[in-house]
């Protein structure tokens, strides 16, 4: 396991949206996929995943449906809605702007040393 990073408040929403944008997943699946994509760099506290899922569903960005999982067990599957897709796009843009801005700040050299 590599070095783990704490997740910024609000970033979790974006990560969940990204995870389900690749195909419907149940809660545990979302957790696994985020860990997998980030190569285990991102660890999500398991208890905080579900409140986030319910919040996103309440806002209409993801939709849930009960279905059967790989091993024939009932599971609640989440998928991205059209509104969620739009939200993900704007959050991604926002994130990039922020990342660039922070990088700029950090890259600035002292002008008068």
């Amino acid at each position, binding site marked *: 396991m590599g070095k783990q990073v704490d997740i910024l408040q609000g970033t979790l929403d974006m990560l969940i949206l990204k995870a389900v944008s690749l195909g419907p997943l*149940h*809660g*545990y699946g979302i*957790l696994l996929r985020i860990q997998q994509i980030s190569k285990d760099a991102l660890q999500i*506290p*398991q*208890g*905080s995943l*579900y*409140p*986030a899922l*319910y*919040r996103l*569903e*309440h*806002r*209409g960005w993801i939709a849930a449906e009960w279905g059967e*999982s790989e091993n024939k*067990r*009932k*599971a*609640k599957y989440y998928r991205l809605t059209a*509104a969620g897709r739009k939200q993900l796009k704007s959050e991604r843009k926002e994130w990039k702007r922020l990342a660039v801005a922070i990088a700029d700040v950090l890259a600035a050299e002292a002008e008068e040393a």
Partner: protein
Amino acid sequence: MARMHSWWRALTRRSRLEDEMVSEMGGHIERYAADLEARGMDSGQAWRLARIEFGSMGAAVEECREAVGLRWPDELARDVRYAVRVLRKSPAFTAAAMATLALCIGANTAIFSVVDAVLLRPLPYPQPERLAQITAHFQGKGISGDKTNLTGLIWEAIRDNATYLDRAVYSEFSMGVNFVAGGQVDYVRQQRVSAGFFRVLGITPLVGREFSVAEDHPGGPAVTVLSYALWKRVFHGDPSVVGQAVRLRGEPHTVVGVLPANFQSSIPADLWTPLRPSSTGEGGGSNYAVVGRLRPDATWAQADAQIDSVGAPIVAALEEDISARLRLMPFQRGLTQNLRRPLLTLWAAVGLVLLIGCVNIAGLLLARAAGRSRELATRMALGSGRAALVRQLLAESILLGLCGGAAGTVLGWLGVKGLKLLALNRLNVWQTVELDWRVLAATACASIAAGILFGLYPALAASRIEIRAALGEAGRAVAGGRNPWPRRLLVASEVALAMVLLVSAGLLVRTFAHLQGLNPGFDARNVITASLSLQDARYATSEHVNRLFEQSLSRIRELPGVESAAVVLSLPYERALNTSFRRLDGRHVDTEDQITNMFYLTPDYFPVLRIPLLRGRLFTDADNANRALVAIVSEAFVKMYLRDDDPLGRHVDFGGGGRREIVGVVGDIQQKSGWGEALGPLAPMPDVYIPAAQTGDKPLQMVHAWFSPSWVVRTTGPPEGVIAGMQRAMQAVDPQLPFAGFHSMEDIRYRSLAQERFQAALLAALAALALLLAAVGIYGLIANSVAERTRELGIRLALGATVAQAMRAIALPGVALALAGVMAGSVLAGFASQLLRHLIWGVEPGDPLTFGAVGLGLLGVAAAASFLPALRVAHVNPAETLRQD
């Protein structure tokens, strides 16, 4: 939208949602455990680790519920559940508070439903806020007011010059007339309105049209517009009725239109005929009301200024010392002018009662908070925030308010029924009074507001507790300890408010007693009256009218049980005909018109009612059309117009009708004054009586268009016994003239003060309620202090104080507070009585007797309410109270 939906689903399917959450998270843990196992962990350890890493599932569920916005409904539900439990645990307090609230809110609901129907609900016409009543506003000599009745001259000026208004003129009275159509005879109510009246109101006839200008002038064609109900009843909704003739008052009238079903007129009417306004005849007096609708491009201020300048040359000259001007009044106010003040007074009174009720409950809550300080301190010690505590206590009082409000609605519903029985069919209320959603919404708001009003201060005070002191030393203080002043102030203000209501009620009751006690001027016992409409083409001449009087009276006099009988135009207490006249000789000779009430009558009228002759002579059968014209005047007429002169032998002229000699003076009778607000509801007026036989054709036709004459019969036994006989007698003379209604003279006298009686009775009931609440408040305060101070009292008694001394110490604060309340209340009541000035007659607004009696009475009640609970001091056993610790 999606959010609302998800929130609502979450709220209404609470347990399903939670089950789903649990099973979803359970599945998660299961899968994680399976993964761990697959990596080689043993099963038990894998499960344990999975659960630990997931954390508390309960907390997660809670957070999920919060995520979908269920936090405040959850907390609210918890608060309400707790409040229900608390209220159920102290049934005595809950019952007392609920009963208080139910009475207070019930009274408010009932009165508000009347206020709403009469004053607040918009008129049922399009854009009612652009409708105006044109009134003559007068001011001076300490009186002010608005007269809605205008003369023909004023109407003509408005018609010709008030360009900012679409205007019409109408008569404010409807009268019964005989109506024959389709072989059916009906007695219907007719109102007279000008061309364009319905257009101004914004009403389009359902069938046909309204009156044209060509039909609306003297001598125009006889036409009529029917109400929807009459059309349905008589013509079964047949539209071809337009153009047909009906017989009205014995004359054929052509139906030109039918009004829509939803049209509500401001006075009861079944059909309408053209007013045909003029500036002579009836138009010579103030008999017209004028309504206008602002033209689309005009503002209220513009139209008002224009009306003022239009009226300036005509109106200012009407009365000396009293300035007058024309002005616009919102139409709704114009229609409800007479009811406005009494209703607002009642509304204020029930509002005060509710306020007193709230003060009372706040006092109870403060007392209860003392008993609950341990509970509250425990909750705070366990980490409940102050805000949460206040919220919890407020939830209790709002719940109490709503329960009281629900019970009050039931009482209010009963109250509305009672009010309708008591007065509304006699007061001129024209929109239906009912408990509709408006009234219910107002009641709900009042209940919640009351809950906050009486709950907020006690809640704030209760949450300000010292946890350690409350938990450690609770109930151990020797002498009270808690600050008693908030509650004392509440009790004092309760007394002050009760004083305001009691004084107001006292003044109105004294007014009513004064009016009731006025000498009516006649003997009302064993007299029955009946009226009928003579607005009939067959009775257009004086000869026909007088023959009808003679023939019917001679038959009625022969009935068994009849002592004497006469006919008169306008009974005592009725609205009488106003007419102008001039004095022709003596000390006062007029060059300008004077005004008086006028009556025509058959010679026996004064003996029948036993109105005393003071000077001169009464009429005889010899005073007929062929003899010199004569008149009899009332004492008030002499006082007003023939002061320091000998009335007998003087001559007067009524509107150019010829010289008339005054041959007698009779005593005054009480009448509806109807002359502004200067004289009060009942007063002796200047009256002139003339023989019916000497009244000309034209004046008879004119007055019969507004007034119906009455047959007045004195009986030897109960007057109701001769009704059937009178009907038969009239049938024999003219089968087409039915008597319209029989009333005993005592009934007419009783009804003349209906509004004043209603006002005084209602206000007295409210004041009694306020007095009861104040007494309960004082009683509660003293009873509570006896309970709190038992230890102290025990010590005092043990140290040698007598029971009487201890009782005085306990009870005196109650009396002192009441005294303070009475003093503050006197000042407030002084203001209130000034506001009531317009409803008070025969007694000064600052009447010392009323103020004194109310003040002393309140103090007496307060003393009783203080000493009654203090009696318990006698049962305090010093030895026992001291041993308790």
